[in-house]
């Protein structure tokens, strides 16, 4: 029999909620800083241009201007890296996208800094630009970087695709295009940087990766890392967009140049143009199947639009490539992924990390297969879905991950049946669509993929987690507090999370890749065991006993004579001697050779996966082409749900982002030649657009996870857009091959009989 859990599995309240509902929470832009100066950034107005001259004298002489920084002034490395050091802190000789930082100006007020930007005199020589990832790889395309526009190419073949296509009874081919979308955290990127009197630098960041920010800031300023200190403020959402050191690098340069304290707070348009986006993609998908719906093989050519800088693109391309077979067992696979530089704002990490692009293609194809064969789309999915014992096409066994697939399919069936009973409103047509999805966890093989966490027992009896990865708002703190509390047999109310400070906190790695609950939880579990051991040692010494005579129970040490010694009291006695009652541990994703095919490039494959499925019901107005999503049922295997309310919050938020991807969000180039760069035209879903979302949590325990937990951060997004597209097909017979599904796209899409005549 399983022992009863204490706090794991309960929707404990978040300790940061009170300060957030009262307005007391301090995000970077809210931090008080006496005498703080403001920086403003001069940004490229061109897609591609040579900087012929950059005159700073007039700006330097302006009243209230304290400093001007150009790339010539950068004291350390001119370029910084996520994966590849191709991104200039400030443009070096050329600009490669609109919005790229060209010069930095520091003044006494924000208004003065912004208005003095007009005094910087830049002469540009415009160069030809390429804005499409397919065109970028054609001969003669304007080069974005010196080494050509192909940044990364992954080509893998498994099984015998040629034989699969030769033996197929049905072959389908379609090309899908998905748009550029923005993470759109409500808090724009911001950083407060203070140049200290001793020649070191302190930065307050809103970031997914404070330790990487430290490395990048130190590199650009030519400082040793230990002279750069990063403190995490409250983070106002991230979704991949804050897996980027751009604003920290600029703030560091500004504070260094001004020898003072400087704020950099982005405007929304700057966030759109100069921070990571989800990669736009063009996916040509060919699928070979038998008449009974069995998929024999696929052949996929994918182009991802990198934009101007690498950021995490090569890693995104890896997960995109792995996700191209979705949640299906496909014996023959040929994939060719090309990651192409363009002169667009750069793409990088965004929730799902390549998964949403791939799933739109594969889940649409599976529906098209069902339509062609006049089979039930769910039945075709059931026929091809992974089963325990299967291997992913990369060779990774999907044993534990795939156990929930039968249950997912059953829940989807039930939800679809129920949603189909409801009739559409007058003049509208209803449709129900389904989608499966898989999301990998972690960074992948051959990459350091670990997290360190530290626990400390304070004399007042509280336990503090020094976590090395920031909570972005998703609730990492409450989840890890519950896991630490569970490990120590304490109520969650006694465990707290300290603000992340690179001087005190161990390096937990980047908060990303649906990996923190699993990794930090495992690290904390190990740290708790060490903490307990240290507590017993300390207590033994204080009580003059042998450790073996003592027992730990729920925050106390039981002595052989029946007395109890509170852990806080032991911590207090140790503190008198200058010692801390603390312990640290590291946890990693394991990539054992027997489970991890070795022939792939760095970051591929991933070995742990989470599976899910969603059902969407839509009502389409066939005259106007408008779509209302009325219901979403989200069925997710998350492993043990540590905090069910927080897990639901992740899924509901992910679905909302998926709905934006499906229906409204797009960052195209306008007729004016400018990118869409504000919320007036970039339409985030509102409370009116997002329907009630029903979450069904399946909790197949993951043996290697803390109390069976896996991950949940990204998985809500990928299935939503294909489920909506499939529902639109069900409603009006229109097969969407590009997102978003605007009314124009629906009215102009070929395929299917006219909506009014289609039988249901």
């Amino acid at each position, binding site marked *: 029999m399983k022992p009863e859990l204490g706090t794991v599995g309960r*929707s404990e*309240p*978040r300790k*940061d*909620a*009170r*300060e*957030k*509902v*009262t*307005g*007391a*929470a*301090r*995000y970077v*832009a*809210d931090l*008080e800083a006496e005498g703080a100066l403001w920086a403003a950034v001069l940004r490229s107005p061109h897609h591609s241009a040579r900087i012929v001259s950059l005159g700073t004298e007039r700006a330097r002489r302006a009243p209230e201007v304290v400093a001007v920084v150009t790339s010539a002034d950068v004291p350390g490395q001119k370029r910084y890296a996520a994966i590849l050091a191709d991104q200039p802190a400030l443009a070096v000789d050329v600009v490669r996208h609109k919005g790229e930082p060209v010069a930095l100006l520091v003044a006494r007020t924000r208004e003065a800094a912004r208005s003095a930007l007009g005094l910087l005199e830049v002469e540009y020589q415009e160069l030809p630009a390429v804005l499409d990832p397919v065109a970028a790889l054609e001969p003669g395309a304007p080069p974005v970087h010196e080494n050509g526009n192909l940044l990364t190419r992954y080509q893998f073949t498994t099984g015998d695709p040629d034989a699969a296509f030769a033996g197929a009874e049905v072959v389908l081919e379609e090309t899908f295009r998905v748009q550029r979308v923005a*993470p*759109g*955290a*409500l*808090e*724009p990127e911001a950083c407060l940087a203070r140049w200290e009197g001793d020649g070191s630098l302190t930065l307050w960041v809103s970031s997914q990766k404070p330790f990487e920010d430290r490395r990048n800031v130190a590199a650009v300023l030519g400082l040793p890392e230990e002279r750069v200190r990063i403190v995490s403020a*409250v*983070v*106002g*959402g991230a*979704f991949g967009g804050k897996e980027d050191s751009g604003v920290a690098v600029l703030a560091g340069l500004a504070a260094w140049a001004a020898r003072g304290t400087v704020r950099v707070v982005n*405007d*929304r*348009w700057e966030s759109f143009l100069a921070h990571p986006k989800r990669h736009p993609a063009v996916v040509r998908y060919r699928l070979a199947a038998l008449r009974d719906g069995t998929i024999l093989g696929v052949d996929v050519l994918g182009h991802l639009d990198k934009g101007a800088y690498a950021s995490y693109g090569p890693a995104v391309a890896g997960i995109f490539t792995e996700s191209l077979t979705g949640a299906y067992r496909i014996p023959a696979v040929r994939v060719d992924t090309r990651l192409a530089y363009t002169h667009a704002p750069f793409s990088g990490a965004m929730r799902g990390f390549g998964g949403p692009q791939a799933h739109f293609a594969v889940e649409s194809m599976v529906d098209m297969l069902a339509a062609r064969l006049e089979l039930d789309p769910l039945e075709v999915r059931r026929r091809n879905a992974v089963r325990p014992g299967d291997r992913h096409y990369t060779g990774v066994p999907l044993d534990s991950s795939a156990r929930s697939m039968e249950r997912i399919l059953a829940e989807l069936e039930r939800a679809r049946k129920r949603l189909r009973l409801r009739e559409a409103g007058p003049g509208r047509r209803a449709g129900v669509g389904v989608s499966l999805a898989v999301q990998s966890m972690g960074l992948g093989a051959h990459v350091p993929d670990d997290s360190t966490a530290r626990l400390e027992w304070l004399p007042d009896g509280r336990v503090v987690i020094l976590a090395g990865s920031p909570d*972005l*708002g*998703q*609730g990492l703190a409450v989840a890890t507090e519950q896991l630490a509390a569970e490990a120590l047999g304490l109520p969650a109310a006694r465990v707290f999370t300290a603000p992340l400070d690179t001087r005190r906190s161990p390096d937990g790695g980047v908060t990303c890749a649906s990996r923190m609950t699993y990794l930090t939880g495992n690290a904390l579990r190990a740290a708790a065991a060490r903490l307990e051991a240290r507590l017993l040692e300390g207590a033994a010494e204080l009580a003059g006993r042998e450790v073996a005579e003592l027992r730990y129970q729920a925050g106390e040490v039981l002595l052989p004579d029946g007395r109890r010694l509170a852990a806080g009291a032991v911590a207090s006695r140790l503190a008198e001697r200058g010692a801390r009652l603390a312990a640290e541990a590291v946890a990693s994703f394991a990539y054992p050779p027997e489970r991890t095919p070795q022939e792939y490039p760095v970051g591929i494959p991933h070995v742990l996966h989470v599976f899910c499925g969603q059902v969407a019901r839509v009502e389409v107005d066939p005259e106007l082409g408008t779509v209302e999503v009325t219901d979403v049922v989200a069925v997710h295997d998350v492993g043990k749900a540590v905090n069910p*309310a*927080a897990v*639901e*919050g992740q899924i*509901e*938020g*992910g*679905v*909302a*982002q998926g709905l934006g991807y499906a229906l409204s969000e797009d960052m195209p180039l306008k007729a004016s030649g400018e990118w869409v760069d*504000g*919320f*007036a035209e970039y339409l*985030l879903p*509102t*409370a*009116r657009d*997002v329907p*009630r*979302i029903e979450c069904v949590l399946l909790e197949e325990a993951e043996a290697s996870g803390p109390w069976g937990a896996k991950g949940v951060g990204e998985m809500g997004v990928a299935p939503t857009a294909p489920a909506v597209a499939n529902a639109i097909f069900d409603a009006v017979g229109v097969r969407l091959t590009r997102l978003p599904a605007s009314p124009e796209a629906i009215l102009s899409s070929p395929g299917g009989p006219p909506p009014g005549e289609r039988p249901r």
Partner: protein
Amino acid sequence: MTVSFAVNGREVQIACDPGRTLLEVLREELSLTGAKDGCGGEGECGACTVLLDGEPVNACLVLVGQVEGRRVETIEGLAPPGGELHPIQRAFVEAGAVQCGYCTPGAVLAARALLSREPDPSEEQIREALAGNLCRCTGYAKMVDAVRRAARELGREA
């Protein structure tokens, strides 16, 4: 020039350019940073929602000159510091409606305006009232739950 108005029940006089926005004055002159800028001062996101004579407004679109003699309520005025939370705030906490929290002050105030006008709102009315407050984290589900919960709570108190 000097502008006089009431903030959270306290009379203030601010000497400033009347063309500055209420958001700037609240944040920079009065250190009331609960109202946020999420869209670049374009009135698109609702993170700076405050109540002006009880009505929700985007503080980034209101010039401080326009509030002369009027009553402004910000999130900081809803509960005494360190004291008991307002039922709407408590409902947001208990319903799990708070994630990153950046949109939360604005959404709480939008809910307050709704519930003072309509104590027993339908789901549609709640969604309508929150439609000006963008949230990227929650998918609004638990936010709608929170407003419903607050309505029940306030109904009991009344």
